[in-house]
């Protein structure tokens, strides 16, 4: 057994009162491929940010616990400290300069300078940055790194125009070119790759590990994890669930660990309802494609019955958020859509709103609210624009009716504010969300899209919002399509829950289905495959 390289010891972290990591301890060994798994919000990225000394950690009061490298306590206060300690990371957004060659990118700010007489003179006169670069040596180093990855591409090719899969390799080449690299973190490296590229990457990972470098492999693809990793660590809700040798476990077990049993909001009113096949279809979606960056939808079809609460779940970045955004025309989309049996053209937000659809966006501050305007203006905005309500005879905004309506909404939804004139930017997350909902309800919709309605809000507001959605569905027969990363929440009020992975819908489950089923689906494994794998 190889020796321990990196240890996380009793790591805890709180972001403004919200504990995101609770006493997490595990270790990484030399030359192993260590898979790190967890749902969104499980704490994966926080623990990696701690490892890298990212400013976001230190500007929010640091963390508790210790990091040990080679059995010595280390302080990582900045990414540069991390770099010096031999920790490398390949980001999901590529940190490559497109107009530079591969070699220039590999040697970015670690360029090799020539040591000749002219350089000695100019650098002593004008400072050390006036030395010319030794491109030959830079290219040679880049070549060496690329060879380790079995990449045959010329090192002097421009990154611009490289297939996206290659960019990942260039980033890895940059990391392994750094002297003294000990730990390499790969964050969802296969997400952007084609199948053959992904296989190539996995074999390259084995090569790197064979050099004695430890790899932390963050992925949601359970099959890849079982294929390539030596050990897996699973985090859930900021807690360390287990670290296990991969050969002692299986896909089904990992999925179950990952999703876990969360003590959360109880189902408010019993079971998910069964809608019979003959009941009216409120929304029919066929072959939906949506070009939402980081949330692409690649061919999804489903029907939602009138009055149903349809939940859409899945991991972040897999495309679940793209569905509502595409249907509402926020991002380019194509597909066949019927609302109450009527065909609707995509990309026409006005028409969708006019047909009685309303949308509460996941991006509260960007899309959901005008944060520098008052609560009342926010609440009536869409209704005024689409249905020309709240205007007086001259076509001017009618202050009186606006205020009256806003006050009513504030009372009904229990929006905590100083007055209806308060800017929404000053409200807490939960109250902002209530304003968003109030705006949607002011449109008197028949179909309501709500995305991440409870993200970043306190428990009380969470319960209120979920109860409200349930009430709207049960009492007014509103059709609700709710998208959320919180599986427990989805299960608590939905009649059916669809799981999206890599832009496709893996399956639809009743809310009381077993957790391992949900877990497998979130990793993109359909039920039948899961049984085989176990």
């Amino acid at each position, binding site marked *: 057994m190889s020796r321990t390289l990196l240890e996380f010891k009793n790591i805890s972290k709180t972001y403004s009162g919200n504990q995101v990591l609770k006493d997490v301890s595990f270790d990484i060994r030399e030359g192993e491929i260590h898979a790190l798994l967890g749902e969104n919000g499980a704490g994966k990225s926080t623990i990696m940010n701690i490892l890298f000394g990212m400013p976001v950690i230190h500007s929010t009061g640091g963390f508790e616990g210790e990091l040990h490298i080679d059995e010595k306590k280390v302080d990582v206060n900045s990414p540069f400290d991390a770099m010096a300690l031999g920790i490398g990371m390949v980001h999901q957004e590529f940190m490559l300069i497109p107009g530079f060659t591969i070699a220039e990118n590999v040697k970015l700010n670690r360029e090799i300078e020539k040591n000749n007489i002219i350089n000695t003179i100019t650098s002593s006169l004008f400072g050390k940055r006036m030395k010319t670069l030794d491109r030959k040596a830079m290219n040679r180093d880049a070549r060496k790194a690329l060879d380790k990855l079995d990449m045959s591409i010329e090192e002097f090719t421009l990154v611009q125009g490289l297939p996206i899969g290659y960019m990942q390799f260039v980033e890895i080449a940059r990391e392994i070119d750094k002297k003294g690299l000990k730990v390499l973190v790969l964050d969802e490296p296969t997400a952007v790759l084609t199948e053959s590229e992904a296989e190539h990457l996995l074999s390259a990972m084995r090569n790197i590990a064979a050099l004695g470098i430890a790899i932390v492999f963050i992925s949601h693809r359970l099959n890849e994890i079982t294929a390539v990793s030596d050990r897996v660590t699973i985090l859930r809700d900021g807690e360390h669930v287990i670290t296990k040798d991969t050969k002692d476990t299986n896909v089904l077990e990992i999925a179950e660990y990952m999703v876990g049993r969360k003590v959360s909001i109880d189902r408010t009113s019993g079971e998910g309802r069964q809608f019979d096949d003959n009941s009216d279809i409120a929304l029919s979606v066929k072959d939906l494609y949506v070009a939402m960056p980081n949330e692409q939808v690649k061919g999804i079809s489903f029907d939602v019955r009138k009055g149903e609460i349809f939940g859409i779940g899945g991991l972040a970045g897999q495309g679940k958020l793209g569905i509502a955004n595409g249907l509402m025309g926020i991002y380019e989309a194509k597909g066949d859509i019927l609302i109450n049996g009527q065909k609707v053209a995509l990309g026409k937000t*006005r028409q969708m709103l006019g047909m009685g659809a309303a949308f509460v966006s996941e*991006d509260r501050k*960007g*899309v959901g609210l*005008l944060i520098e305007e008052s609560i009342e203006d926010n609440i009536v905005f869409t209704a005024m*624009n*689409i249905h020309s309500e709240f*205007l007086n005879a001259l076509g001017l905004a009618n202050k009186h009716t606006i205020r009256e309506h806003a006050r009513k909404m504030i009372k009904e939804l229990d929006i905590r504010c100083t007055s209806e004139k308060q800017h929404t930017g000053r409200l807490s997350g939960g109250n902002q969300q209530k304003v968003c909902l109030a705006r949607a309800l002011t449109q008197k919709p028949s179909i309501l899209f709500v995305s991440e309605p409870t993200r970043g809000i306190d428990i009380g507001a969470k319960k209120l919002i979920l109860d409200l959605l349930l009430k709207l569905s049960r009492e007014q027969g509103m059709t609700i399509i709710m998208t959320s990363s919180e599986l427990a929440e989805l299960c608590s009020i939905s009649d059916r829950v669809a799981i999206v992975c890599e832009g496709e819908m893996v399956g639809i489950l009743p809310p009381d289905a077993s957790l391992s089923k949900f877990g497998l689906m979130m990793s993109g494994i359909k039920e039948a495959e899961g049984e085989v794998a176990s």
Partner: protein
Amino acid sequence: MSEKVTENVSFLSLIRKIPFSTRAVGLFYIAVVITGVVVGWPFGMLISSSLHLFGVWAILTLANVPSIQSGTGPNFALPIGIVSGLLAMVLILAMNVMGWMFMLLSTILAIILGSIAGFFYGRLMNAVKGSEMAIAPYTGFAITAIFGLVWLTLPIDHPNMLFFLGDGLRHQIPLDYFNANFILANLLQFEIAGVTVRTGELIVVFVACALMWLFFRTKTGIAISAVGRSPMFAKAAGINVNRSRIIANMISTAVAAVGIVVYAQGFGFVQLYDFPMFFAFPAIAGILVGGASGQRARVMNVIVGAFLFQGLLALALPVFTRVLADTDVGGVVNQIRMIVQNGIILYALALMARGAKQ
């Protein structure tokens, strides 16, 4: 004792609430007025000349409100609107229309031509979203230059409009030939406590301001404001972002066109050729002085800003002439104008950059 302290604090915090640009120029303005009175200029005369420049510049300053509100930023291409207004006046004058009829017809034609020009300008601004301010000034400059050729070659043969020698329109067409000089300024003009009030001009300014204020309370106006605040929000609410921006720029350009008509009567000349080239900058500085930012402007900002900024320039010349003997005072005032005007714009740009960072 303690009451007094709190009073002081609240007064200070009130001052602090006034935007920096307004405070700085406001103090400068007050200082110049006091100096003026000290060196012996009558107070009424000083206020009169402030009011005069306010009257001719207010509508040109107002043109920035819709473009800022729509997120296009201050209208650095103001010369496009001005050229439209000049063309309107030239065409009406060529038909030898005089007096009030000239004012009426050229205002209407200015609105029409300004809207048309604004439509194309708005489309251009949509094509360069995010860098509007970098492109707009050159658009304005280029249009001004190309209209130099237009003024030279327009087939107009009204003797009072042409060069004395050779072809082409004059650099300055005097409006007194057409009974239209100071036509608004002289309407109901009265004097009170030594202050000359050019009532007609002020009425037009306040009507324009009121119309703008009302417009931003209509559905379309509210939509335009939302587009400027958050294009994604507007889009999600079913608003056509590009269309709203075009409407805003049409209004902005049309208002600038009307503004130059008022300006021309206020000075008694229709000034052509290079004249509009650098008109955007004082107008923008004006609205910024009034407390507007690159992303937010209200009609109130126009009134305060045009009065303070243009007033300052109006006062500086007579006051400095007494203070700085033996100096090229015109030159000094012009350099001060350059410093204040562009300093204010730079300050606003820095605030915008800071806002973008957050």
